[in-house]
Every structure is written in structure tokens, then in C-alpha cells.
């Protein structure tokens, strides 16, 4: 009974599928799908490496500080890093006093309530505060930015396919739209052509416009590529502050597990030796 109905159901589903496949195949041949324009002009992220890459990678605090400077001077007006606290900057090598000063002098203040009137107000940040958001809410963000909401950057290198190389490519990849780009795909008003962006046109104007846009205190030449790379490195850190600790812990755990597993394997071998010996004896 089960088999009888089984075969009927099986024939039904399999038949449906073969029929659908046939229709699909005819459609595919008679009317082959065209690749969307976005695909033709879209480019994969540039091949760029970071010091934190790979199983032995480490953050370069100098670079992260430079990246923080770029973030502060170029990005922070529109993009928040709301999940990061000022105190976290100590991990980049800033002293306690420096962190305090950065928090207190941050151009956007932390929302608070007036202790006397209870009305909404702001106060200078302290290290325990998270970085204040540049816009109070999404509506305010959209209103101030031509209806495009600047994404928060805390997790951006984890929240985009392609990670930090994508961020780097996007920042350093603005070009003029190619001549052969169809009219429909050309950047409209308020949009900017960037082949690394999924639909080619994004609302963000090129943020890093030219060399020496920021002045690095450590003497590094601030080229466009350098700044883009530094801020991408900084954003790797904001997305995964424990990245290096993860790798270090990982090596310790792997080393331990390797030894433990070898011991367990030897133990297994010795426990089974008798049974295997019996097998050999019988074969002989």
C-alpha cells in the first residue's frame, strides 16, 4: 500500500519537475536571459591586503590611529559608529587622558536630559559613552542626505560582501561613468558613479577627494589610497575588536586539541590492539 501510493506520488512530483524543466529549457533556449547592465559594469573589490589578514595577522595600531583620524575628519559627520565606545579607543594605543580628551571634544555630543528641567539636551561624552549618532534618527538622516540614509559603520566590514577590500575599493573607486553606459544606468542628480557599488550609482559623494585631505601626525603621506586603506583597517577593528585575540586564542586551542587528539588516538589504538591482533592471528 505504502509503495503503491509512494510510486504514484513519486511519479507526480517527478513528472511535474520534468515538465517544468522542459518548459524552462525551451524558454532558456528561445529567450536566453540577458545579464543586467549592473553585472556588466560592476567590478569585484580590488585585491588589497591588511595587516590583520590571515591566521597570524595583527592590527597595526599606527594605521588604526590614522584610520580613526580619517574617520573622524572625513566620515564622522554623516556616519556613526554607534556600537563602539570611546573607551575602546584605548585598544588603539591611546592613553586614558587622550581617550578622555577625544570623548570630551567629539563634535557630536551625547544625548542626555537636563538634570534641572528634564528636557532633552546634550553633554560632552565620557569614555564610557558610545560614539554619539550623527543623526537623531533615520528620518533626520534621510532628510539631511537627499533621502539616502548613511549607514552606521560599526559593522560595515562584516555587513558587506567583500568586507574591508570592498570598503577600500568603494572609497578609492569613484570614476566618471564610462561612455558606453546606457542612459538608464547613468547617475542621476545627487548620485555618483562607482563600479564597486552594487547598482553602480550611490548617493555618497566621493568622500576622499584628494591627497593630503588629512594631515597625518606620524608623517605618513596621505594619498587617497593610503587614507582609504587606513580607514578600512580602522573599520575592520570597529567591526571585530577582538579579531586578534580570536586568532591567538585559536592557536592555543588548536595546539592543545592537536596533542589531546593524538593522545586519544594512541589510546584508541592501544585499546583496540587486542581485537586487531586477534583478527591478524585468524588470518594467518
Amino acid at each position, binding site marked *: 500500500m*505504502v*509503495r503503491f501510493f*509512494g*510510486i504514484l*506520488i*513519486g*511519479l507526480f*512530483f*517527478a*513528472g*511535474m*519537475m*520534468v*515538465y*517544468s*524543466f522542459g*518548459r*524552462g*529549457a525551451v524558454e*532558456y533556449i528561445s529567450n536566453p*536571459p540577458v545579464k543586467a547592465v549592473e553585472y556588466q559594469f560592476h567590478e569585484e573589490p580590488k585585491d588589497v591586503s591588511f595587516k590583520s589578514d590571515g*591566521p597570524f595577522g595583527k592590527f597595526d595600531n599606527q594605521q588604526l590611529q590614522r584610520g580613526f583620524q580619517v574617520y573622524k575628519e572625513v566620515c564622522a559627520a554623516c556616519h556613526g559608529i554607534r*556600537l563602539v565606545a570611546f573607551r*575602546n579607543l584605548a585598544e588603539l594605543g591611546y592613553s586614558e587622558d587622550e581617550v578622555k580628551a577625544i570623548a570630551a571634544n567629539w563634535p557630536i555630543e551625547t544625548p542626555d536630559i537636563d538634570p534641572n528641567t528634564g528636557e532633552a539636551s546634550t553633554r560632552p561624552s565620557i569614555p564610557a559613552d558610545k560614539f554619539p549618532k550623527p543623526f537623531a534618527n533615520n528620518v533626520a538622516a534621510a532628510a539631511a542626505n537627499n533621502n539616502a540614509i548613511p*549607514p552606521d559603520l*560599526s*559593522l560595515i566590514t*562584516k*555587513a*558587506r*560582501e567583500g*568586507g574591508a577590500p570592498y570598503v577600500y575599493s568603494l572609497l578609492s573607486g569613484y570614476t566618471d561613468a564610462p561612455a558606453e553606459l546606457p542612459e538608464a544606468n547613468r547617475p542621476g542628480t545627487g548620485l555618483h558613479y562607482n563600479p564597486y557599488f*552594487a547598482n553602480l550609482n550611490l548617493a555618497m559623494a566621493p568622500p576622499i577627494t584628494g591627497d593630503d585631505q588629512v594631515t597625518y601626525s606620524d608623517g605618513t603621506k596621505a594619498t587617497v589610497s593610503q587614507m582609504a586603506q587606513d580607514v578600512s583597517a580602522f573599520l575592520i577593528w570597529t*567591526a*571585530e*575588536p*577582538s579579531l586578534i585575540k*580570536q*586568532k591567538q*586564542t*585559536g*592557536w592555543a*586551542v*588548536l595546539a592543545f*586539541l*592537536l596533542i*589531546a*587528539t593524538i593522545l*586519544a*588516538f594512541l*589510546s*584508541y589504538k592501544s*585499546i*583496540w590492539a587486542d*581485537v586487531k591482533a*586477534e*583478527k591478524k592471528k*585468524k*588470518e594467518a
Partner: protein
Amino acid sequence: MSFPWAQQYKPATEFGQWMDDRLPIGRLVYNSLGAGYPTPRNLNYMWNFGSLAGVFLVVQIVTGIILAMHYAANADIAFDSVEHIMRDVNSGWMIRYAHANGASFFFIAIYLHIGRGLYYGSYKAPREMIWLLGVVIYLLAMATAFMGYVLPWGQMSFWGAKVITGLFEAIPLVGKPIQELLLGGFAPDNAALNRFFSLHYLLPFVIAGVIIMHIWALHIPGSSNPTGVSVKGKQDTVPFHPFYTAKDGWFVGLALIFFTAMMFFMPNALGHADNYIPANPLSTPAHIVPEWYFWPWYAILRAFTFDFLFVPAKLLGVLAMFSAILVWFFLPWLDRSPVRSGDYRPRFKKFFWFGLIPCIAILGYCGGAPAEEPFVMLSQLATAYYFAHFLIVLPLLSRIEKPEPLPNSITEAVTGKPLQQAS
């Protein structure tokens, strides 16, 4: 329990004896996972994945209880509370990544365990009940994993919840009310998140309960083995402890090496970038797919693109997807070949390795790919074979196939010598 030559539990201490007379829990462990459980001596490494899945279930329960200490099941702060775990809680990142990757490893173990059962005919008499309980465990695990993926309340969480509950909408007449009942609203929000959290916490313990029944049922006939030949005597078995505890032990170590390599060095490799964007009910991610362990089923769902008579394609896809798993419940009665092990079934072996396995691989690949050609056509072919395999090939094969000669006993298969008097 089952074999007369099983070693008897003898409490080593006076206290042990006292306990044994009152609450024989030591005896229970001894008889189920200890020296009192005679196990076929010829099990290969495919028999390691059941215990491995158990280990990963424990990993999930332990890390999950810990995450629940810090997680907040509220749509406004769920996402931030996960980031709080990642950034501020001591070793929080480790525990979260262990939980996220542990789910994948649990399913890897489960799939290999199921695959073992499919190939070696572990579902056949007298082990049908073990198999049925196993399918129940798998269904519960899928529900648990799905609801767990919703909890971080990222973009994939939100849209996953919306799409999966949308499956129920396909049911005629009552679909829409059922979806609203499941979500507690018109779209996923606080109500859905909270109930998913509650059930995500509960179901693993239900799974653990069904696993106890699964093992209980296993101990009635005892473990199957690669030859499929039943145990004939003491010489065919070894005590589970220390022989298989040692084998499981080192194999768990090996699996943990792969697991920790994943969780410490590429913890997000199996996740989706979009889930690091907080849930946004107004914008769907460009490419929305479930976690990899659901891909084959997802491919079957998407393979149905045409209405059939009065049945819409959407409903057909949902029916097919559920049937694809439900068909396993009937497997013991679909495959009537008296030979259990695929090793001795020349034709079954070919259908298994060149039909079923590639078919599931294709379905898995297409399920993770965008809903474009040629992936849809490929998944249609693979879906056709999938149903044909279980519902047509297996029932017919068990009639026409001529199996190879079986060894007389496990011992004979191991030593290559016919059974003499047991030494």
C-alpha cells in the same frame, strides 16, 4: 539489555552498591554507553557521527544557555544585545561564535549520520523506530535552527522569519490566519521574536528527550553494522566501553579541531553579511537564502514554478518541500530489500552514489544560488530524481535486485574466515 553475554554491572564501592539498590543510574549508564552494551566489532567511522552530533548538541545547549544570560529578546535591542555579547561580555565573542558555528557542525554530523543510515539500511527492521525517531529529531533540529537564526534580528533573521512563515500562507483558506498566528502580527516583530526565543530555548531539551528515546530504541536490537548482518554471538561484539568510547573520543577531538579552526579563524564564513545589518522591515536584502543546511529543501521549494490544475505553484513548492522530508518516515516500508547494507546491493549502490548523492549536492548548490537560470532548471532535474529515488527506485529495486552473497557473520566478514567455534 539485549545480549545475554553483556557484561554485568558490579558496583565497585559500597556506596555504589547502596545507590544501585535505590537509584541504579550507574547501571543505566553502564548498560547504555558503558561496558554493558555489546557493540558490533566492525563498525567503521561512519558510526561515529551519532555521538558526535550528541557532543555538538551539548555544545549548543551549554553555549546557548550562556548566550541567553546576555541576550535580550526585544526587537528594539536584540541586535545590540548580540553586539554587546560580541564586544563587552567576557569571552562573549567566543561563546557566540561557538554557538553559531556549532549549529553548522551539528548539522554536518546529523547529515553524515543520516547518510550512514540511508546507505547501510539502518532504517530497516528491526530498527524502524530508531529511524523514525531520528527523523523527528531532524525536524525538531531544523525548527530550532531556524528560530535561532531569527534571534540576532539582523536583515537575514527578519526576512528569514518572514519567508518561512510565508510558507504557511500557501495553505488554502487558512494560510493567512495561520501565518498571523505564528507571527503574532502581520510581519515579524516583538511578538514573533519573543516566541521564537522561548521555543528556541525549549526545543533543544525536547530534542534531548527524543534522543534518549532514540538511544533506548537502539538498545533493543543493538547497533547495526556495515555488513548489515545481525550479531550472532559474543565473538561478533566488543563492549562499548572502552572500545567505542575510545574511538568516539579521539574522533570528537578530530572534529573539534575542525570546529575550533572554523570558529576562531573564519567564524562568519558560513553566515551572511546581511545579518550584520539590523532588521529593516522596509528593505529586503538582494540575495536572500537560508543557512546552508536548508539549501537542498529551499531548492525544492523554488523548483516549482508552474501551477498544476487548481493548485498554485507556491503551494506545490511547499508541499514538495515538506514531502521531501516526510518521505523519510515511510522509507522503511518503501525499501523492502531484505539486505540492509548497500555494500551488498550492487544496483542500490550505483543509485546511491551516482543518483542520490549528486542530486542532493546539486540541490544544495542551487538552493544557495540566486533564483536564476540555470539553477532553477538544475534543481528541477534534481528534485525529480530525489522523489523518484525514494518513491520509485527504492520500491522497484527491492524487487528486481539480486544482492551479493552476505557473510555468515560479522566475525567472518572481519577475519575473512568462516565461523568456527568461537575462540
